[in-house]
């Protein structure tokens, strides 16, 4: 079996089937991340395609000294954030805004109603975070990555990543448990 780096080198020499192999290896990761970020299978499919097309077109800029999967997840992360921005499902990512008082549970009442039926409490809490914070938490737990990998993907120092994780988890915790307590009282 070829390494990712070998497959990249083969692709650059014109062997397209080598790139097919890379798609087979990582489409699932990219698709899952896109799906969790967008919560829309059609969007996730389009994004996945876009991620690999961009990777393919800029393959010569990939540095084989780094991990290919981190590189592709970096492209995916950027596109997911862009996508949410375009959809207007985004507030300011500045840290000041990340306080419990300012943030609503969901920015858009219509989609909130749409989601409330099928979306779990944890997803609702997650959606209430700015996209960059959602992304960090998904990379950490849903993708099961290490802090170092996340730092590489986000191009941020590990300290910054840790701070984000800490704050995001704190807010998730508050929201998740306060919603559940509300539910228990109602019941």
């Amino acid at each position, binding site marked *: 079996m070829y390494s990712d780096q070998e497959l990249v080198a083969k692709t650059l020499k014109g062997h397209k089937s080598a790139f097919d192999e890379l798609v*087979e290896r990582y489409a699932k990761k990219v*698709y*899952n991340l896109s799906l969790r970020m967008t919560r829309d299978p059609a969007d996730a499919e389009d994004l*996945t395609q876009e991620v690999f097309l961009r990777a393919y077109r800029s393959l010569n800029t990939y540095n084989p000294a780094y991990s290919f999967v981190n590189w592709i997840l970096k492209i995916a992360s950027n596109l997911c954030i862009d996508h949410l921005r*375009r959809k207007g499902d985004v507030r300011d990512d500045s840290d000041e805004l990340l306080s419990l008082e300012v943030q609503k549970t969901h920015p858009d009442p219509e989609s909130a109603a749409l989601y409330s039926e099928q979306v779990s409490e944890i997803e609702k809490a997650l959606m209430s975070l700015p996209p960059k914070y959602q992304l960090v938490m998904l990379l950490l737990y849903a993708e099961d990555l290490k802090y170092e990998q996340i730092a590489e993907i986000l191009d941020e120092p590990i300290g910054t990543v840790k701070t984000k994780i800490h704050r995001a988890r704190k807010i*998730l915790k508050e929201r998740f448990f306060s919603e559940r307590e509300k539910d228990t009282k109602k019941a």
Partner: protein
Amino acid sequence: MKANEQATSRCDYTRLLLDDYVDGNLAPLVEREVKSHLVSCSSCAEEAERLKKISDELSRLGTTTTDEVLLVVKKVQKAVRKDGRWCKKRRLKIAGAVAASIAALLLWSTYFRPGPVSFEINGKDIAFHAMGKTVVVDASRLPGDLTVIGGDVYVTGEIEGNVTSIDGRIVAKVEDGSVLSRVKRALIEIWQRIWR
């Protein structure tokens, strides 16, 4: 055994480490310290439980079936295979009622390499030759498919139909306003030629 509910400096110390404890990032010695405090302090133990619960819930977030992924893989491979040959085709998704807009605004820039370019909009050929080779299309005004032959195309906004570039590149969105203003006047003229 009676739990010590009072917040102590031991608690403060433990709380600082809880994130790393839950993620399994602590050195064995420190981890043992935290563990032993959690046994004797119900309030820190509860906090740890809650943090753990959040991580567990997040790791359980749904994933896709193998069949779904296979479909995506095929689609992506097909798209990539088409790309980088002589023809590139890309579907850009549309938000909302673009159909109402009538005009396609073709912006023309002259600062790229010279050569003939022609367009088709909805199959209607608009054979057009110009100095530049790059078209900037305001997609919010484009009612259907756009095909550019022999030129590069930039798309601004989202487009309903297909954008195809034959023997050229489809370049991602233009964000740079200066590019647009530089070429605007020339473009309006082209636009009029196309739609009148």
